[in-house]
């Protein structure tokens, strides 16, 4: 068996990095973590990811990979234990569909935008984020503990940031998105997710996240 040398370049508060770490932990893959200061990028990061200059970057036996969803699929295909994507092609298509949807509508252009925006733009961003979350709630209804059933999988990892980062953004941005009475299935899933052994002890401390995002909010007001 060839030696498995795995390095992960990350940033402590990046949800894109966290999802790669959870995948590696779930599969029991040992890795070396290298913390990057994304505000002062190292020559190593710029050399390994010249196209986007971002984390996460995974280096596996000298092979360099970037983009979190691309990395997740690579990890899943390379280490067969604890499969992340479902086996059935249609279920795989659905998992990929909802991961992309949530990434676009709830993460990038959704909650973080709503936290930073003012006035009409804020209302608009909040409205579309909540609408998107309703669809996710629909996907979780009657599913079991996780999106794929009883075991954690690709879609859980893709949306996992909601369980610990969304509450921080709501706090810091004074917005309300995750109403447990309106989204009971999502609330239950969030609780299952943060308590999962592969996730539990690896989350960044809440107070540290609050300080960080308060600062970012000021810097990135729109």
């Amino acid at each position, binding site marked *: 068996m060839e030696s498995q040398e795995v390095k992960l370049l990350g940033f402590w508060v990046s949800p894109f990095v966290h999802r790669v770490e959870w995948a590696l932990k779930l599969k029991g893959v040992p890795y070396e973590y290298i913390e990057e200061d994304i505000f002062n990028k190292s020559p190593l990061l710029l050399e390994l990811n010249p196209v986007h200059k971002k984390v996460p970057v995974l280096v*596996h036996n000298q092979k360099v990979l970037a983009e979190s969803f*691309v*990395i997740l699929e690579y990890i899943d295909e390379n280490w067969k234990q604890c499969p992340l994507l479902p086996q059935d*092609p*249609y279920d795989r298509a659905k998992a990929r*569909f909802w991961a992309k949807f949530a990434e676009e509508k709830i993460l990038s252009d959704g909650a973080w935008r709503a936290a930073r925006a003012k006035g009409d733009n804020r209302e608009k961003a909040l409205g579309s984020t909540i609408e998107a979350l309703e669809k996710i709630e629909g996907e979780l209804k009657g599913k079991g503990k996780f999106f794929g059933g009883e075991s954690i999988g690709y879609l859980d990892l893709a949306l996992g940031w909601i369980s610990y980062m969304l509450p921080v953004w709501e706090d810091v941005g004074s917005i309300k998105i995750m109403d447990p009475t309106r989204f009971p299935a999502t609330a239950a899933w969030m609780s299952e997710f943060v308590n999962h052994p592969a996730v539990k002890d690896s989350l960044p401390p809440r107070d540290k996240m609050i300080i960080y995002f308060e600062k970012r909010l000021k810097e990135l007001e729109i």
Partner: protein
Amino acid sequence: MAKSDVKLLGAWPSPFVNRVQIALNLKSVDYEFQEEKFDNKSELLLKSNPVHKKVPVLIHNDKPICESLIIVQYLDEVWTSGPSILPSDPYDRATARFWAAYVDDKWFPLLKELRTTEGEEAKAEISKKLKEGLVLLEEAFIKCSKGKGFFGGERIGYLDIVFGSFLGWLKAVEKIAGLKLVGELVTPGLAAWAERFCSHEAVKGVIPETDRLVELAKIIQARLKAQSAPK
């Protein structure tokens, strides 16, 4: 497989739809094509893709699959007897997926922007970024093709389909904006690949003729101008 088992909801000018058509051709899948109109979407489309209400939608045994990249991967995973679309090695697959995301998220939005941009300075700025992207894609082509004719090597593959589907609009925008983006001097690999791709059996007749797209772009521009004109 019976023709009625596979239905594609699409629109002839959409490069995203073209991707799926090329993939279906590669796998020799018999399918029914339903042309959708942008301003008069069918009940079936609205029912099959309630989230985005967009084409392409593949309906296989009554189950809808949406998003072109997801559909192409689905086809590859279901029709395993046909030629493979994604490479077999996990790292090559990751490389193909990485560049597919780059083309869709970073490069194509610039091309769309160039289509509607007016003013020489603004056009020059966008075309500079597009050309920088093409240099990256030229490097990717050299790495992925490993001396062969396509991103997928000897045969057409995932990244060929993803990037190649934009060649129709690339040529149309070159005509509209009056400039050349892909050329033998800076991107010789891509220039030769583009011709090879467009004349491939599975691609011929799928990507619309440049002039037809230029005409359509004119109509869309005129419509947009009329809508935003003061009344």
